[in-house]
């Protein structure tokens, strides 16, 4: 047993400063702070994001995404009603949008079986949604927030570089993600003398995950930001589909990295309820294939999408990792008062 905290007092002061700087930026940007429940009867379906179940049959949330989208849909609905029946919630224009505010939340979230230098099963997400923005505008928005935080810590702006998922894959493998099979990726690992787990079997996305971590992320600028965008369609999660500059189908999804550490994941949000339901079902099938327990779909979210989610983009950013980046900590336990081992 160890009753002492894992973070120093200085580190806790940094964490407080970080949250203060975020709240001041959000206030200046007129983004409304909201709170949504941590417990839900439904759970995230992602096969690789595991919810913790409580003994009353509910789940601790892994991100506040679903209820926040329900708020956006509800606010848009009210705004549309205020401005007459001719306006659909999804087609809101200024000034109607002022009745459907941007929202943010600093939420404690829980993910089972995640622990390591950059993982603690309980951690903090900053999640925010911008109505009327797409993922590209949201990258700019996020970059403005990051600059504000770096300023609050008296740190020079480290710079932000953008890379495209497909191009990173194509440059090394000569193929685009949608053309790959696991055999091609395995050959690349073997040629590079790297270990490749046979257990990946025919899961191309799992092979791509490891490929990115082994070969692409190590080339990201060490102490600067990288945004990886234009994800493969197979990894679209809750993002809309679109086209890259060459007309190839891609997911309008991005991730933010500091060095090679993932800090945030953002989407131009999918608002089509039917497609969303298909993706949920596909996730459940993948769970079956991976022998991961099924979870109840969030029918409330699907209903909200049917009513109409305003065109928006949202991003979830891990605050502990942001803290590690801005204050140069090397282990997540250094920025959490009591880490998993002491909680």
């Amino acid at each position, binding site marked *: 047993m160890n009753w002492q905290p894992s973070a120093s007092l200085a580190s806790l002061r940094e964490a407080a400063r970080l949250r203060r700087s975020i709240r001041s930026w959000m206030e200046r940007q007129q983004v409304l702070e909201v709170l949504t429940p941590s417990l839900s009867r439904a759970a995230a379906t992602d096969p690789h994001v595991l919810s913790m179940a409580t003994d009353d049959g509910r789940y601790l949330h892994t991100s506040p995404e679903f209820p926040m989208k329900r708020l956006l849909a509800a606010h848009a609905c009210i705004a549309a009603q205020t401005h007459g029946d001719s306006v659909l919630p999804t087609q809101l224009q200024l000034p109607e949008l002022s009745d459907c505010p941007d929202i943010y939340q600093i939420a404690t979230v829980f993910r089972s079986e995640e622990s390591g230098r950059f993982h603690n099963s309980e951690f903090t997400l900053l999640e925010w949604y911008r109505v009327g923005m797409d993922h590209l505008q949201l990258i700019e928005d996020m970059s403005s927030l990051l600059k504000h935080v770096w300023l609050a810590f008296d740190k020079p702006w480290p710079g932000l570089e953008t890379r495209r998922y497909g191009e990173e894959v194509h440059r090394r493998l000569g193929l685009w993600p949608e053309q790959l099979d696991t055999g091609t990726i395995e050959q690349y690992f073997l040629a590079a003398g790297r270990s490749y787990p046979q257990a990946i079997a025919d899961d191309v996305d*799992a092979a791509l995950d490891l490929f990115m971590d082994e070969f692409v992320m190590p080339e990201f600028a060490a102490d600067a930001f990288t945004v990886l965008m234009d994800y493969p369609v197979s990894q679209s999660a809750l993002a809309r589909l679109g086209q890259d500059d060459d007309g190839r189908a891609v997911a309008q999804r991005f991730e933010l990295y500091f060095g090679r550490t993932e800090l945030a994941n953002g989407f131009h949000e999918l608002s089509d309820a039917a497609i969303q339901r298909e993706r949920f079902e596909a996730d459940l099938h993948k769970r079956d294939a991976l022998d991961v327990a099924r979870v109840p779909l969030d029918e409330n979210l699907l209903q909200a999408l049917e009513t109409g989610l305003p065109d928006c983009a949202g991003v979830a950013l891990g605050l502990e990792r942001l803290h590690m980046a801005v204050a140069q900590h090397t282990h997540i336990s250094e920025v959490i008062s009591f880490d998993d081992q002491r909680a």
Partner: protein
Amino acid sequence: MANYGTNEFKGGLKIMLDGDPHSIVSNEFVKPGKGQAFTRTRVRNLKTGRVVERTFKSGESVESADVMDTSMQYLYSDGEHWHFMNPETFEQLAADKTAVGDAALWLMDEAVCEVTLYNGQPLAVTPPNFVEMTIKETDPGLRGDTATGGTKPAHMETGAVVKVPLFIEEGERIKIDTRTGEYVSRVK
């Protein structure tokens, strides 16, 4: 035989890989936020001593290796085998050259060693971290030279060669760190 899941991995865990016993040197949890989790490890092959990188998909399980570290007292060498005794059971075991390896340079005086047993047979021998030995042969000492920081080779009874400070004389007893093979101090 028991199995270990990747979430039980930790430094020192003994597992079977490709038919050989291995010890986990270090492990790192790798997971993209929305993607497949992996455990990247560095493992030492306990037969060859080679350290390699090995990546597992999270949730994979591997067979445990029947490997045990036991404290045993060194008895003697017959030239071909090195003989050890368990000080509690008085059981004796003979380790061959492959198992003893470089540890042979530090084996003397009933030293208590860590003997790694695989299926009951000695696989590796780790000498005590520090041993005391008498210098068999070295160049004459430069009396009073304790400041220049220079060194000279000194030959031990076991055949080990250790760099010692210039003021050390033949026949003196010194303390050696076996992990680095470096001179630590004189023994009065």
